[in-house]
């Protein structure tokens, strides 16, 4: 990759005071009011539908930020296909921000996107420079992803190329500060592959990507974590994420918050099960003091949700968060109210120890974080179970234990041998994989008392970028 000095150097001089406009400022104000910010993952090809979706998000009975999810042609940089599909009327699975006419995008966002309703661009690209330039042109300044999380799980771009592309992209975004705007970048590292990655590695990659962004001059970041299979392990993970961010992100110059993703794996097929799973995501966010939650809808197991289904999910999540907060306070339980509050979970949990060991091992590989990340995957210090990318070592494996916690079946070269005893090697079969992939679906469907939401349940569908 191109060696960016900014990746080695200390962060820029402390910000005098974070601006009051922008994505993070909105989240900060909501936090001060004790409200969880909820956000959909919505994207439509047509400007009219996209505008209707943003409007419905803004108008939902919840504290919301908007989402502009891009289509998958734009994600992989096939701009000709994005133009072609838009021209011949095919359904695009997201908004083609790079190829859309500027006046369409202006009209789509006009009167909606602003300080009281920030809109984040979600894309899934390992080659995001055009997307970053397009979102800046459109007057937006919040997006997400990461050099690892938008490379290894989803595409064919070599990791070294992605690291270089993401370096360039951060350098496109960071200078917006000079215009009085505060660009915001969220890590996707807490969501690797959506499911079956042990939480400690999700936390480690999320923290490392946040560090990557801040070393390139982005001063407003959020660190993600996706709900997994065990509520207890998830709370440990979010506490570990918060502690590592506190320990490692520059205190004076960087503004950060935590974003939780509602479960991204195979979703329950019953309405009751899907709603219960979303409620438990809202509970996780509330009990861990996370500032923002990205929701899923009751139809996730089958298809891309409609605008109304998205709005319904936002309102359900907001109500659930409110209920959890109220109940917890009534019981005198601790709810983390501020990012500075100590985590309400065991700080030296297994998840924290593993995540800290992974982060430390990577940071010690090279003073340049980009090179360190590339090296880490080469030597298996980071190794994503079941990831097919050629730059992933592919020797680590995970399994679900009887308590529903994600554990390591095989460590490969992960520097965790002093902390973890991996399961003795019996190869994970297709049946075991399918059982694990469907664990959350079965658990929540079995608690629901209603009929299936209809249609079949795709056991291989997942909540990844389109």
């Amino acid at each position, binding site marked *: 990759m191109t060696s960016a000095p900014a990746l080695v150097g200390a962060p820029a001089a402390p910000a005098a005071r974070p601006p009051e406009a922008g994505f993070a400022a909105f989240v900060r104000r909501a936090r001060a009011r004790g409200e969880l910010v909820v956000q959909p993952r919505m994207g439509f090809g047509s400007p009219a539908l996209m505008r209707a979706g943003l409007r419905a998000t803004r108008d939902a009975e919840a504290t919301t930020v908007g989402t502009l999810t891009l289509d*998958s042609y734009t994600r992989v940089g*096939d701009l000709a296909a994005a133009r072609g599909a838009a021209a011949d009327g095919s359904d695009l699975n997201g908004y083609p921000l790079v190829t859309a006419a500027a006046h369409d995008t202006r009209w789509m966002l006009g009167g909606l996107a602003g300080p009281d309703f920030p809109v984040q661009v979600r894309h899934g690209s390992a080659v995001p420079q055009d997307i970053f330039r397009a979102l800046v042109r459109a007057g937006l300044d919040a997006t997400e992803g990461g050099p690892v999380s938008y490379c290894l*799980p989803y595409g064919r771009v070599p990791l070294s190329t992605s690291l270089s592309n993401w370096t360039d992209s951060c350098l496109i975004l960071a200078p917006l500060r000079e215009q009085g705007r505060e660009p915001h970048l969220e890590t996707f590292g807490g969501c690797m592959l959506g499911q079956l990655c042990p939480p400690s590695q999700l936390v480690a990659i999320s923290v490392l990507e946040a560090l990557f962004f801040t070393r390139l001059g982005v001063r407003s970041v959020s660190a993600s974590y996706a709900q997994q299979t065990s509520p207890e392990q998830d709370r440990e993970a979010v506490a570990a994420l918060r502690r590592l961010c506190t320990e490692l992100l520059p205190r004076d110059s960087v503004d950060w918050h935590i974003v939780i993703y509602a479960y991204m794996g195979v979703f329950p097929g019953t309405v009751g099960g899907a709603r219960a799973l979303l409620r438990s995501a809202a509970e996780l966010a509330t009990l861990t003091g996370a500032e923002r939650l990205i929701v899923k809808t009751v139809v996730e197991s089958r298809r891309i949700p409609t605008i109304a289904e998205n709005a319904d999910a936002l309102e359900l999540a907001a109500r659930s968060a409110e209920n959890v907060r109220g109940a917890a306070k009534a019981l005198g339980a601790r709810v983390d109210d501020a990012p500075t509050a100590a985590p309400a979970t065991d700080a030296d949990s297994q998840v924290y120890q593993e995540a800290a060991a992974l982060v430390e091992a990577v940071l010690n590989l090279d003073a340049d974080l980009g090179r360190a990340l590339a090296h880490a995957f080469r030597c298996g210090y980071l190794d994503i179970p*079941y*990831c097919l990318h050629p730059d992933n070592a592919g020797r680590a494996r995970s399994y679900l234990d009887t308590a529903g916690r994600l554990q390591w079946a095989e460590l490969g070269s992960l520097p965790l041998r002093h902390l973890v005893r991996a399961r003795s090697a019996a190869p994970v*079969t297709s049946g075991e994989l399918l059982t694990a992939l469907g664990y959350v679906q079965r658990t929540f469907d079995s608690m629901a008392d209603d009929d299936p939401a209809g249609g079949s349940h795709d056991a291989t*569908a997942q909540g990844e970028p389109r």
Partner: protein
Amino acid sequence: MRGVTTETPPGALPERTKPLVLISTVASDAHTWNLVFLQLLVEELGHPVVNLGPCVPEELLAQACREHRPDLLVMSSVNGHGFRDGLSAIRHLRAQPDLDPFPAAIGGKLSTSDSDDPERVRELVEAGFDAVFMDGSAAVSTFRRFLASVERPTGVHPPQHRQWTVPLSGKAAP
């Protein structure tokens, strides 16, 4: 897990006891659990597998077919672009003069809606897919039977195309 689990010596076709299965997806589809599952399933049934991983451009797919000479191509897509991209991919593949026709199947969640569209299934078959597996509870068992039906390789790709179109109910077999 590496995408390619079967090493092919350069310039030589490997000795095969069971048909070689090439697993792929369409160019715009980033999903991989479907591909990981299919690889494990097909391997457990004794087949050597080459897994191309996510986001496979049409030219790479054709190149992989030339290189590995698969006895069966299995494409899986769940991002909603499967009809459009699958159609384009199979047309591209069938138009390659140096690739003899060999069995090809596609399955998954092929459109952005959950409504039936038998017309588009027929389009895929007419363009060159021998089987179309729609998302459904019977898809895996139907797929196993399809796999078992693929001819033992004789060094020449089996020329016959049998139609295994699985209706949207996921229940019917040929």
